[in-house]
């Protein structure tokens, strides 16, 4: 019986030692002590089975195996308990102050004018318009004569021009384009037959004083669609869709009579005021009118269609010009256009 009692004593000792083991390394030490391959004490007892008299061997063997299994189970149990305790500690004693800021990651942004330009081009692109750019430094014949604004025409007052200091044949012909319309003429010139459906983005320049709503350098998008069957109602439809993309699906638009020498009829388009929704007598955006003037447009003058070599009795077209900064001002409620080219990152990084 001494063998059995030794077994029982070892079991109790091992369980006590296990309960006292505080961490994984103590568990490993315990395992070596009791289950080490060479001289683990449980291993030794199991090995001692051969010294037990044959009559007791079976009973001893069964008891020894039972102890071995119990202790192995206890080890696993203890290991799991320690792991759980460690996890508990991680989420309590080692809890983070999640209100501290994260590590700064670098992220750049597009300029708000670029963003607005991209959004506009996307809206028109979805309606089949191609993007066609033209030069900012332009010949006067494209900027003016080609769009029916000859010299000594009062419509030249609509665009105060910055002239380039280059004399050719004793005259100045080079200028900073005052609008993107000259590229209408360039696109028509290089397109042998309709259809034409382009948007022309780019910078324009005006010789004028700067204030909260005027900049001498500005960004425009010119639109031009020329084909058989292009109607003024299509112009309205295209601009309506663009307005909804830029200013919200519930936008309304209205055409007012206007005049640009290169279109006939000519209109100005306004959108309903999404700031005051038409009830703001004091509204700074629409000045209480409920409408915001946003762009000029019209049907391409038949003379321009003819100059392109198309038959103006069959082919019609429309054109429009959008001031990108104005759209950006409106969509974000920015009060001063001069913010755009002041390049203060504290302003730019908010968009």
């Amino acid at each position, binding site marked *: 019986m001494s063998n059995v009692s030794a077994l029982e004593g070892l079991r109790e000792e091992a369980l006590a030692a296990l309960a006292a083991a505080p961490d994984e390394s103590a568990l490993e030490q315990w395992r070596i002590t009791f289950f080490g391959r060479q001289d683990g004490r449980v291993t030794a007892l199991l090995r001692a089975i051969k010294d037990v008299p044959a009559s007791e061997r079976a009973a001893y063997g069964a008891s020894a195996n039972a102890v071995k299994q119990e202790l192995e189970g206890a080890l696993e149990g203890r290991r799991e308990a320690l792991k759980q305790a460690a996890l508990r500690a991680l989420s309590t004693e080692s809890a983070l102050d999640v209100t501290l800021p*994260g*590590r*700064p*990651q*670098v992220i*750049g*942004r*597009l*300029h708000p*004018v*670029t963003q607005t330009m991209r959004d506009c081009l996307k809206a028109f692109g979805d*309606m*089949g318009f*191609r*993007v*066609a750019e033209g*030069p900012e*430094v*332009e010949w006067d014949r494209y900027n003016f004569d080609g769009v029916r604004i*000859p010299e*000594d025409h*009062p*419509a030249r*007052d609509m665009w105060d021009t*910055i*002239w*380039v*200091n*280059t004399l050719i044949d004793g005259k*100045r012909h*080079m200028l900073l384009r005052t609008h993107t319309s000259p590229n209408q003429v360039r*696109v028509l010139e290089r397109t042998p037959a309709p*259809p034409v459906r*382009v948007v022309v983005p780019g910078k324009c320049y005006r010789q004028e*004083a*700067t204030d909260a709503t005027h900049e001498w*350098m500005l960004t425009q998008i010119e639109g031009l*669609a020329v084909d*058989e*069957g292009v109607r003024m*109602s*299509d112009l*309205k*439809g*295209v601009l309506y869709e663009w307005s909804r993309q830029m200013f919200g699906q519930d936008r309304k638009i*209205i*055409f007012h*009579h*206007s005049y640009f*020498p290169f279109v*006939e009829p000519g*209109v100005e388009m306004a959108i309903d005021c999404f700031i005051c929704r038409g009830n703001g007598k004091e509204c700074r955006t629409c000045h209480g*009118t409920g409408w915001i003037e946003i762009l000029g447009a019209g049907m391409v*003058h*038949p003379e321009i269609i003819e100059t392109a070599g198309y038959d103006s009795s069959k082919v019609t077209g429309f054109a429009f010009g959008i001031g990108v900064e104005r759209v950006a001002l409106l969509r974000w409620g920015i009060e001063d256009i001069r913010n755009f*080219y002041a*390049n203060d*990152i*504290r302003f*730019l990084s908010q968009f």
Partner: protein
Amino acid sequence: MKLSLNWLRDFVDVDLPVAELASRLIDATAEVEGWETIGANWDPERIRVAEVVEVAPHPNADRLRLVTVNDGEGRQQVVCGAPNVAVGQKIAFATEGAELVDGHTGERARLKLRPIRGVDSAGMVLSEKELGLSDDHEGILVLAPDAVPGRPLVEQLGDVVFDISTWANRADLLGVMGFGRETAAITGKPLREPSTAHGESARKASEFVEVSIEAPDLCPRYTASVIENVTIGPSPAWMQERLIRAGQRPINNVVDITNYVMLETGQPLHAFDYDFVRGKRIVVRRAEEGERLLTLDDVERVFDSEMLLICDGEGPVAVGGVKGGGNSEVTEKTRTILLEAANFRAGSVRRTSTYLKLRTEASLRFEKGLGAEVPEYAQHRALHLFEQLAGGTPAAGIVDVYPGAKPPRTIAVTSARIEQVLGIAVPAEDVRRILAALGFGVEENTPGQYSVQPPDWRPDVEIADDVIEDIGRIHGYHRLPTTMLRGQLPEPERDPVRDLRERLRDLAVTLGFQETLSYTLTDRARLARMVPDSDSLRSEPLGVVNPVAAQHTFLRTSLRPSVLETYAANRHHEAGALRIFEVGFEYLPVEGDLPHHRPVLCAVLGGLREGRWPQAGTERLDFYDARGVAEAALQRLGIPVNFTAVSEFGLLPGHTAEIRVGKDPVGILGQIHPDNAALFDLTEPVFLVELWVESLARHLPERPAYAAPSRFPEVRQDLALVLDSETPAGRVLELVRSHRSGQVRIGADIFDEYRGPGVPAGKKSLAIAMRFQSSERTLTDADVAKVQSGLVTRLAKEFGATVRGG
């Protein structure tokens, strides 16, 4: 222009509310910028017309008088200090409680009556200032003699004055009648025309003056009438009031009538003192080069031979369509008037007024194109008024020289074209009604085929689409549906440079840069901060003649100064790392042609790297950050590049590399030279990356070169080399990466560069982490050893490299 609602009502009944009228005019006619209501605060009970019936001295004050007025209900006595009060005048009379502007403080207040120097006052005789009409507080406002005592002043004098900007092609809208016609068309009310009836004397105008036109190309028509026995004096109050509301200063009845008729019809008129017209002749001719005239504004004008002069028998008396001369001005002594109403070529008037820097009410109208029939109408209207208001007698007939007479124009307009342009059909009765109301003649001989005669005051109407615009705007654009473009999609507009430019913009943003956009015009001093004189292309930028400001005189030939200036400006308030970029054009001059618009991405970075929170950052961004940006962007584009040390103005030697594809330069990067940085007040190291979009576009692969990942594991092995200090590590790395042995590829990165103890002087050690991989099989140690030994042999041959510890 200023449009008085009262005046408009002479021509058409208006029963729309003011805001509604304004909005209808905006929709169809012109831009109504706003309006001013005159008399909005005049209480009809408390501010009324009264007549002065007695003026007596004040018993206690020399400068005050006791004025008795009849206010329609009875006599009232008031104390009045105005010097101009006189018996018989109709005046504006206010009683207790009326809201007025205080004559001294300018504040609005209710009238409170109190005795003045011991005498009670029953009310107050008002000045223009007290009514809010003007700042005039010198004397009382004297009303028209026919004003009826007791009538509320707001009925007598109240008005709404619209501020309207009209379009550049509509001279007819610079006359109230033009708006009368538009309003009639918009509202459907009939138009009333003013009287042009007048008598005439037995003597013919042609006996007074002879007119000849020597420049019919610049003056299609010249009419002259003569009015005898005029009495110069002030014009009547109602006329003065209208002129003032239109923004004109009343002068005398003759000048006022000419201005009044101009404001009414749009046709400028000019009155000469007939007695000063030498030779009793008018000659319309081009000026002789250098010819001079003292104009009415007392400035001596010098003319060139393209300018049109109105001359008498001896010399110039007026600048055609622009301004009269001082030598024939109407004065108090004038008895006989020669009245000019002419038609001048629009472009010529504009040119003359631009060159003379003399914009007048007349030139503003002529330059927009007036109808050649209007002068005759304006003459008769003026003669009517001269007879009524200046006591004159018109000579019989009008001298009319009309070399530019044209047959009436007829334009064919079809209902099909209307629909083709507008997208909707307009019913025939609407077409007829609208055109008739605007003064067009319309015949519809075949259904849908209109034969249209535009009125002569509308020279802007030239083609069918002009007529269709008039139909469309009056019919109302709100009737147009919103439809979508139909038909074939156009050919694509290919522009690979633009596409790449926009991709680079996105890549810069992805890499943490903030986009900025700056003015493309700069000055030479700024350009010179980063452009050397020796760069003949960039140091001779295109200039502009009339810059908005001196610092915006030259088209920039480099983006570097702009971006560095932006960097420096932001450094004032930004403590950490700054990464900014701009994509824009360099405008490079081309002889005899438009400049080359060269697209460039210019990025600048510097400052303290973002910290390992919660520790603060102490490490600065450096050259290798700049290079990393270039590498990442170009790798993303699939463009294989190499970097070569170069020197470049504005960049620090030894810290500058050109980015090349093969031997083709596609960009540059480096540290801004501290001397140049100092020009921007920058003392910290700042780094530049510039990519040249057109050059890059030539090397952009259509699609990325792609290889499937190998199924077989890679073998990792480090290699330490000892090399001459000067050997460019990049070349070594390039060689390792490009080494091929059978199907085995090598991936490699440098993880250490070391000089010092353990490495001989003049040498450096380079540690390279290599990854060997085959696409065909799992590599054995022997395979790797074989590839590596081949590689080491090449490295030894190429760079004299030895394996460290090998």
